[in-house]
């Protein structure tokens, strides 16, 4: 099979991932709802995963995909724990707007 990248070109993949990453950052800074912030973080992670796979195709190496594998495992664990924390915060304060989490004010 031909290297698909000869037809698409790696630059396109790079631009796509960069823009996706930036959308993720924007979402983190812009939204106040903690759940939406989580989702934006997942978007960022996915952008990076995609870039890894694209480069593994570019280098014809399997290591990129191994890394993506582990990255997915970690993302799963992170979402689980993060949501547990979020739920306990909700039980304590009653809202999940990150503007209300100001107890570290010093």
């Amino acid at each position, binding site marked *: 099979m031909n290297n*698909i990248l000869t037809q698409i070109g790696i630059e396109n993949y790079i631009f796509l991932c960069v823009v996706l990453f930036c959308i993720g950052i924007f979402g983190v800074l812009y939204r106040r709802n903690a759940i939406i912030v989580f989702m934006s973080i997942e978007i960022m992670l996915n952008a990076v995963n995609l870039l890894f796979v694209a480069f593994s195709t570019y280098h014809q190496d399997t290591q990129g995909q*191994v890394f993506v594998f582990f990255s997915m495992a970690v993302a799963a664990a992170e979402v689980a724990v993060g949501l547990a924390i979020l739920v306990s915060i909700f039980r304590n304060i009653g809202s999940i707007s990150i503007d209300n989490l100001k107890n570290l004010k010093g």
Partner: protein
Amino acid sequence: MSTVLILFCVLSAITLLTAFLTIFSRNPIHSAIYLVICFFSIAGHYLLLNAQFLAIVHIIVYSGAIMILLLFTIMLMNLNQEDEVHKPRFTRLGAIVSFCLVCLVLIKIFIDSKPIVEYDYTGEDYQSIKVLGKALLNEYMVPFEFASVLLLVAMIGTVLLSKKEKLEK
């Protein structure tokens, strides 16, 4: 315009559009749905790059597990009819500024990097399940095992954190 390129463009458009909509929709349930569609499109990208195992795993883990979890949490906290007060003007401006900044920085970096002259093609199989499995269990044996420990710990942590506290009567 080859079919591959058209496919790539369509998939990219869906990815970016849904990601954008995720951030900007009012209703969290809508955001979750849009995110699911985004993940599916990324799985499509993986398939385009011939990483079949990863595509399936991606759908199972992300769309199948993570998004379900998120949806359940949203519904648990009754965020369906959420209307958020706008953040102060300054913060929105700051967010837009930083978005543009990061975007520009990264694009500049990639533009300034070395031009890509040739694409290797050796023809040998580098990403089938067989090769991936061999790599995981030979070279990356230790991280592989530790990933399972990580998942176990995460599971225990989650259960502990979300236990309801027993009120003293």
